[in-house]
């Protein structure tokens, strides 16, 4: 596509110590992101997408341990960097935006101060230069009167403005990769669209790689170059956005897509889909397909061994024992799903 990947992840796993044992929050996840390209990580809450992003930033909670064969970012292996070197990358080459802009900003410091310190930390120099940069970026993310805003405190700004400010703050040093964890979930619908287009524009302008974490397939359809669908800590389907949407292959992906209401869909045309059952426990060792207890196509073979990723197209892989044709199956795909 467009040049060498900015980030290549191979075999990333995150385990969390819980009283009952080891919780496998993320298991053997691999993907890559190219400059100017968007990778969407999709899945239900608890599927490991947030843990994956925190692992990339090396901001995992203390009880979590990270293992990876390779997490190569601009020629360096993130999994093996010292904490000191990692801190130098964060905010400089790697940025991250969080879900809730209401709580993600320090309430006792001015906007300007919080933005400037990113520049001062990584670039040093005079505060005036940092301030100039902050003002420029606030304007760039669509905030009017940036100069006045710099002197305000977070609680004086609306949620949408705060998220814009958060984006501007993470762009202070023009990172090569930006991770956005559900950046619009806490915002009003009208504001959501603005923030997404803003992210898209900025990504093109700065040629950034973008990892967008979301549970909203509408957002994926709008933003994704590449998609990775996660379930129970694993990637169950991955490929270009176009292929995954055109030919969803893993039963779980199709289940997710069935859950989106379509315009004009009425009871006569069939009820809205839903996926029965709950996500299995991720504590302890497991074998077989982790989706089998919720899958209408499950059979004996799903219990055994590791299910490997199989090719479904040129740039399209899925994790199911059935061949693509059968996995796509015939309706009904789910025990209690669309009839």
């Amino acid at each position, binding site marked *: 596509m467009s040049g060498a990947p900015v980030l290549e992840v191979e075999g990333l796993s995150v385990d969390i110590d819980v009283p009952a044992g080891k919780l496998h929050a993320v298991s053997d996840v691999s993907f890559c992101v190219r400059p100017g390209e968007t990778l969407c990580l999709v899945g239900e809450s608890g599927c490991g997408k947030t843990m994956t992003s925190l692992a990339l930033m090396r*901001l995992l909670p203390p009880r979590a341990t990270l293992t990876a064969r390779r997490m190569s970012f601009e020629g360096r292996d993130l999994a093996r960097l010292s904490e000191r070197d990692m801190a130098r990358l*964060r*905010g400089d080459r790697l940025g991250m935006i*969080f879900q809730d802009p209401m709580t993600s900003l320090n*309430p*006792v410091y001015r906007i300007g101060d919080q933005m400037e*310190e*990113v520049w001062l*930390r990584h670039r040093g120099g005079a505060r005036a230069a940092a301030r100039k940069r902050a003002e420029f970026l606030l304007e760039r993310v669509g905030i009017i009167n940036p100069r006045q805003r710099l002197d305000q405190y977070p609680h004086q700004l609306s949620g949408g403005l705060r998220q814009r400010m958060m984006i501007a703050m993470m762009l202070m040093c023009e990172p090569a990769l930006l991770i956005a964890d559900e950046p619009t979930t806490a915002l009003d619908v009208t504001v959501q669209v603005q923030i997404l287009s803003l992210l898209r524009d900025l990504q093109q302008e700065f040629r950034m790689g973008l990892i967008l974490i979301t549970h909203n397939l509408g957002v994926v359809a709008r933003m994704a170059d590449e998609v990775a669908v996660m379930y129970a800590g694993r990637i169950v389907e991955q490929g270009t956005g176009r292929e995954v949407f055109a030919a969803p292959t893993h039963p779980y992906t199709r289940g997710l897509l069935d859950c989106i209401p379509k315009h004009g869909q009425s009871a006569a045309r069939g009820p809205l889909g839903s996926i029965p059952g709950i996500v299995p426990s991720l504590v302890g060792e497991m074998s077989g397909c982790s989706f089998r207890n919720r899958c209408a196509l499950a059979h004996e073979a799903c219990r055994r061994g590791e299910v490997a990723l199989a090719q479904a197209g040129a740039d399209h892989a899925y994790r199911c024992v059935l061949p693509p044709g059968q996995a796509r199956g015939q309706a009904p795909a789910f025990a209690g799903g669309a009839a």
Partner: protein
Amino acid sequence: MIGFLLRRLTIAVLVAITVSIIGFSLLRLSGDLASVLAGENATPDDIARVAAQYGLDRPLLTQYFDWLGGALTGDLGRSLFTSEPVSQLIMERIGVTVTLAVLALALGLLVALPLGVLAAVKANTWVDRAALVFSVAGQATPNFWLALIFILIFSVQLRWLPVSGSDTPAHFILPVVTLALSIMPSIMRLTRAGMMDVLSSDYIRTARAKGLSTTSVLFKHALRNAILPVVSLAAVQFGFLLGGSVIVESIFALNGVGYLAFQSITRVDFPVVQSILVFLACAYILLTLISDVINAQLDPRVRLS
């Protein structure tokens, strides 16, 4: 901000008046002052004479307004024992008590704040547990007992420090350490709890995602937020130190307001006792008012609302 201050000020004045009424009535209603003053073998005539002499036979309200009227003009009455003006007795001794309280608070904060931060940063390690043991033990140690142990060790065994009196700076060391130890546990616990809370907050994750150094994350971003409740606690503790020094001042015979209060209580010198009581209550009210203002200065959400 001005409205906030005015409202707080009005409440403070009302609370001060209520407290003075309570303090005043408590001394008169918890027993018959006149008969206590007249002594054990007093005849009813003696008691009546004592009551008349000190105006205790008048209605309570009259007594109160007399006293309040005097108090507002700076006349707190005279000691029954030495006949000196109460205000003078207090003024002569306030320096010792305030010195004691300021030093104890400073020492307490100096130890407890870093310890609380450390315990939070090293949560659930041996450092945290040691700090917890220290705070549990500190909270359970009666300070009069601790004072006696200090005297036994440092004055009697090691002969480093004087037993009692208030002549030299060395006389202040043991009382200050005793008082400081009594306020450390709560300050440490609150700092630890506040830091734990703040460290798991989203904005600390943001600060780390910005690549800031550990020092900056801990001291610029976390402590500044965690310290807000500690400011209020410190004000309360300062009030406690002013009043709580009764015990420590008596043991070390430091000639401060607390010792005066204790002596006056045992002599039923009620004009002195009630004045000190109301004086300390007003000091407490003033301190909480100041801590509210400091908090507002530290927290823009309060200041700008």
